[in-house]
């Protein structure tokens, strides 16, 4: 498994509170260009986009290039509105996508 993600949210939040969402991803973020030993080069294979959707509405998007490290860490903030799922979707070079869901409890 080359992809794995750990998402950290506060255990609970009050309505209107600004919370920090921390996402630690396991991914080699291969920038490509190295020799493949057969005269060619390895193609780039990185996660190029992370989108976060909260209660059906997009709240955050990150476009990544080769300047983002392997196993990237990302943090951002959002305003807690209602208990609901935050859906994280990564897009990888080559078209693969990965989805993880974290539930935010708002009391």
């Amino acid at each position: 498994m080359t992809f794995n993600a750990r998402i950290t949210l506060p255990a609970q939040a009050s309505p209107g509170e600004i919370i920090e969402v921390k996402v630690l991803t396991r991914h080699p973020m291969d920038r490509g260009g190295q020799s493949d030993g057969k005269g060619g080069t390895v193609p780039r294979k990185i996660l190029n986009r992370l989108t976060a959707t909260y209660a059906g509405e997009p709240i955050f998007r990150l476009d990544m290039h080769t300047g983002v490290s392997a196993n990237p860490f990302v943090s951002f903030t959002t305003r807690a509105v209602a208990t609901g799922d935050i859906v994280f979707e990564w897009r990888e070079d080559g078209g693969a996508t990965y989805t993880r869901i974290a539930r935010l409890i708002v009391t």
Partner: protein
Amino acid sequence: MSSAISPRSGRSDSGPDRRRVVAGAAAGLLVAALPPHAAAEASPELAQLIARITEGVAPERARISLEIPALVENGNSVDTRIAVESPMTEADHVRWIHLIAEKNPFPDMARFHLGPRAGRAEVATTLRLAQSQTVTAIAALSDGRFVMADANIVVTLSACIDGG
């Protein structure tokens, strides 16, 4: 004075003498120790990169902070945090924050798209830096203005040596 035992042990007249070499080295150290110019005057390449991002609008140096270590041992993963002072309302918010490393093989590193739902314009990530250079953060505000901040980073181990 007796002559030198062998030609190699005598002091040669040609070439820099030792005292001058030491003095020169000290002067070199002094130059290296001077604080690097806060990139008030951006290099032409960087200015071009910034102009491309902002579509020609000159960004202001205000309201944005770029938190990044001044010296990193390993350019493979550099913790970076960017915060923009903004109320993050529908009328006045940060649209995106863009990170540039002028001397990376691919200078554009990442772009964070934010909106009023963020509550606060504060993001963090880990970057990959090829060499010692200036890292620039540019934020686009909802009123069409841009703000920027930059920092000089010394990288002792480049991110482009090994496979990491």
